[in-house]
């Protein structure tokens, strides 16, 4: 394992220290270096008159979530240890910091650990008289959704939920309305990912799974877990089809519909390859008569230095388009 780190145990703290210094105009990082539980808020604190937005999860997915704290998106983010949900004593103060009196929406990715820790944290925040609503993002079509399983995972579609709900909050929506917008995004966003190479968690020191030279993992999550199945290495066109087909099957898009197409890099794949996948995915959508009205390509929800990508499709309507286009000013997303 070769990484630009000092003590692997302090990797998250050291990285957040640099992040805080580089983006002091946008964010404030609390509780670093043992001075209390770690969480990140927008510089200047909660925005008067606006519903607050909080998200969080394990670290290692940068820029998610701290990179999305700022005007038009999140008010606070809670980074756990690498690939490990944060704890309630981090989440609760983040929720409190995000509250400006109109309540807080907690955006949680669907993992048992995230759900359980947010549940406790929300209870504690409510006990401090903060009104909290929770939405659970579960966009990963690799995982079958069933009453008898943990359900679909929350992956790259989380960016769309955070951006669009963030814009709804800026628009002045109340907590119920912001929550409804977030739920609309969740209902209409689906993702699927592939890994060409695994990643290595700093304090573990070896790859999260072992892939042979000619093999790839289809249907991976974002925590270095193995995927749904392993297939022989294939062309970008073939791999993209393996990602897009299940999304289309699940979203049931009709010709004439408009979508946002998001190709997300897992961290170690160059941009040039992401654009190849984007081009192929776009063609598959257009062959169905679907219009790609908005696009995003880049490393937004990563798994450390994993090589691979995911494709996310969000069904758009006028409202979602407008909220997507609304200004945003965070460390990692800016327009």
């Amino acid at each position, binding site marked *: 394992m070769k990484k630009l780190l000092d003590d692997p145990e302090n990797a998250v703290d050291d990285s957040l220290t640099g992040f805080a210094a580089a983006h002091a105009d946008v964010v404030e990082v609390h509780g670093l270096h043992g001075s209390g539980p770690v969480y990140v808020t927008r510089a200047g604190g909660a925005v008067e008159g606006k519903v607050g937005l909080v998200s969080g999860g394990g670290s290692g997915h940068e820029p998610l979530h701290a990179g999305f704290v700022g005007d038009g998106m999140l008010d606070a983010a809670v980074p756990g*240890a690498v*690939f490990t949900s944060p704890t309630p004593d981090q989440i609760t103060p983040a929720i409190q910091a995000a509250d400006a009196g109109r309540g807080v929406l907690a955006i949680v990715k669907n993992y*048992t650990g995230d759900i359980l820790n947010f*549940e406790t944290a929300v209870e504690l925040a409510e006990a401090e008289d903060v009104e909290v609503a929770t939405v659970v993002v579960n966009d990963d079509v690799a995982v079958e959704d069933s009453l008898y399983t943990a359900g679909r995972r929350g992956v790259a579609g989380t960016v769309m939920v955070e951006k669009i709900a963030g814009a709804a909050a800026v628009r002045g929506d109340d907590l119920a309305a912001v929550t409804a917008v977030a739920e609309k995004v969740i209902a209409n966003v689906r993702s699927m990912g592939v890994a060409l190479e695994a990643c290595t*968690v700093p304090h573990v020191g070896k790859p*999260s799974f072992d892939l042979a030279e000619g093999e790839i993992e289809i249907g991976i999550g974002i925590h270095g877990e*193995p995927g749904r199945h392993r297939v022989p290495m294939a062309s970008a066109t073939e791999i993209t089809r393996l990602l897009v087909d299940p999304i289309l099957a699940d979203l049931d898009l009709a010709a004439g519909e408009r979508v946002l197409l998001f190709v997300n890099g897992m961290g170690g794949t160059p941009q040039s390859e992401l654009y190849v996948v984007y081009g192929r995915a776009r063609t598959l959508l257009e062959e169905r008569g679907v219009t790609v009205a908005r696009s995003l390509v880049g490393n937004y929800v990563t798994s450390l230095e994993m090589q691979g990508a995911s494709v996310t499709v969000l069904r758009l309507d006028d409202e979602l388009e407008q909220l997507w286009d609304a200004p945003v000013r965070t460390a990692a997303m800016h327009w």
Partner: protein
Amino acid sequence: MTLDAAWARRWVAQAANAVAAAKDDLTELDRQIGDGDHGANLDRGFRAVVAKLDEAPAPDDETVGAVLKAVATTLMSTVGGAAGPLYGTAFLRASKVTGREEIDSSAVVALLEAALEGITARGHATTGEKTMVDAWHPAAEAAAAADGQPVLAVLRAAAAAADAGSTATIPLVATKGRASYLGERSAGHEDPGARSTALLLAAAVAAAEEQ
């Protein structure tokens, strides 16, 4: 023989040692079917628990429940992941039925049953889903079956059942927790949370044997 707060503290120390020793093994189990952090998470948590308990000297009238409550809150705020809230709740519920300076074998049964109830209340898993429930459930059952026997025998029965329960998760297909994402590919691997449960209960036995 009954168990006292000193036993609870020895349990914690034994558990911390056992988790530290098994850290890499637990992580490797989790790497196979999860995200490879279970060993590191628990180790971080139990080191924090030991530090917390070492901070202040125990009051003379310390209860078993008070120790278990400290374990619970510390695990909740330091472990993270799924295991943090699950073990945290388990110890919290256990602390509520053991708010005495000395506990007997029936109280040990109640402790294990409360822990199990806490875990299933939070995680909504039942047996056979390849989770730590598959270790806690047989442990609580075996303890109940041994109720009335000396506490050490009750604990030993529980620990043995947890160990067997953990081993029995190997062929299962996970339907809860992160391993469930693997579907059929989760079969053939032992559940890390079930294994760590077996370690914790073995530590409880060792702590009682020292008495």
